[in-house]
């Protein structure tokens, strides 16, 4: 089936099998490998990206379900001149990553969270990221990063 999606502002048209998962489409067809696959069972959040502006787990969405929709991945977060998105900057400054495997998903979930709740408490951040696991267990600094990004925005 032919689908057209906008990925990080660029329209893309491809012929895909209906069973192709959105995360495979992004990684293998579009060629953007920043979106990681961790569990492949909707649990870890490593595959989080924005579908129409909201974080979703792209291992649990079919590419055909995204036809006609707007997708943003971690590659689309920094400005064209390379300036990091405030959330990326906050993760860098607050040591919000160790190995970095969960980081793209964390950044996408955290930016979606701040759109819905621009002034979260620490508890709001912890609950808002409950769908994202960090195998390095660096949660303390991840939460610190998100709170820093929220106050930088304010």
């Amino acid at each position, binding site marked *: 089936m032919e689908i057209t999606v906008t990925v990080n502002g660029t329209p893309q048209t491809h012929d895909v099998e209906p069973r192709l*998962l959105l995360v495979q489409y992004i990684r293998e067809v579009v060629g953007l490998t920043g979106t990681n696959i961790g569990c492949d069972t909707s649990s870890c959040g490593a595959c989080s990206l924005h*579908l129409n502006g909201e974080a*979703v*787990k792209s291992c*649990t969405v*079919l590419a*055909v*379900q995204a036809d006609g929709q707007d997708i943003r991945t971690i590659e689309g977060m920094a400005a064209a001149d390379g300036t990091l998105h405030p959330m990326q900057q906050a993760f860098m400054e607050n040591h919000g990553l160790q190995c970095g495997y969960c980081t793209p998903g964390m950044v996408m979930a955290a930016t979606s969270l701040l759109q819905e709740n621009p002034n979260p408490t620490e508890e709001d951040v912890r609950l808002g990221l409950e*769908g994202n696991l960090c195998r390095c267990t660096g949660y303390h600094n991840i939460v610190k990063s998100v709170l820093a990004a929220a106050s930088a925005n304010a």
Partner: protein
Amino acid sequence: MIPAAFDYVRAESAEEAISLIGQHGDEAKFIAGGHSLLPMMKLRLAQPSVLIDIGRLSDLSYIRDGGDHIAIGAMTRHMDVETSDLLEQHVPLLAHAAGHVGDPQVRHRGTIGGSIAHADPASDLPATTLALGATYIAQGPNGTREIAASDFYQTFFESALNADEVLTEIRVPKMNGAGWSFQKFNRRAQDWAIVGVAAWRNGDQAGVGLVNMGATPVLATSVAAAIAGGASVAEAAEQAAADADPQADLNASVEYRQHLARVLTRRALETASA
């Protein structure tokens, strides 16, 4: 993990979805948010040969004041139920329970209709709407019909919905200021309930729904009868497992589930009675 191959068609209306499923028969399935169906297809626990996508039926995504009830379109996502001002005002128990489903990413995709049609006894919204005395509206080739939540759930993943019917609306009576509480017991954030309790109380009237206490969501009628008969919260909560037939699994034995149901029902009714 990749699902078995299937054909995909997108329905533009409920009528079209019903006619498509009529054409394709048993091998076809509706997909709404896909957050119960896709995980099952990836594990090959489900292998439909045709998927009929009803996820774009945006005219089935709404939350409206229906006078004595709130009407919720089946395609309304958990996140929209959780953040609805209308529900917060008139059916706060349901808005709150929706906020306990999975995690934010799951709530951005999963729908209330999918949750109910899937009829998983471990899901939060079937037991909650059951406790609230909801009515579900189904549309089929011969028109629409109303199904009381108390008649809907048959056994694990099976409901009174016919294969060629689309669940279109969930009608939930207004709570009229009743006290309420949703208690979900799990070990890790984001997990399903090991046992959950949705409860409301208004004077001597009460409703208690149990999550993951049997093959269907359970209405704890013995608890409501005890409250109506003047029992204390502690006495009534002792009846919490009386209507349930829970199973043992990796998380909990039968006895542990029964114990949790009693403890969580007591806590829920204490809050709802305060």
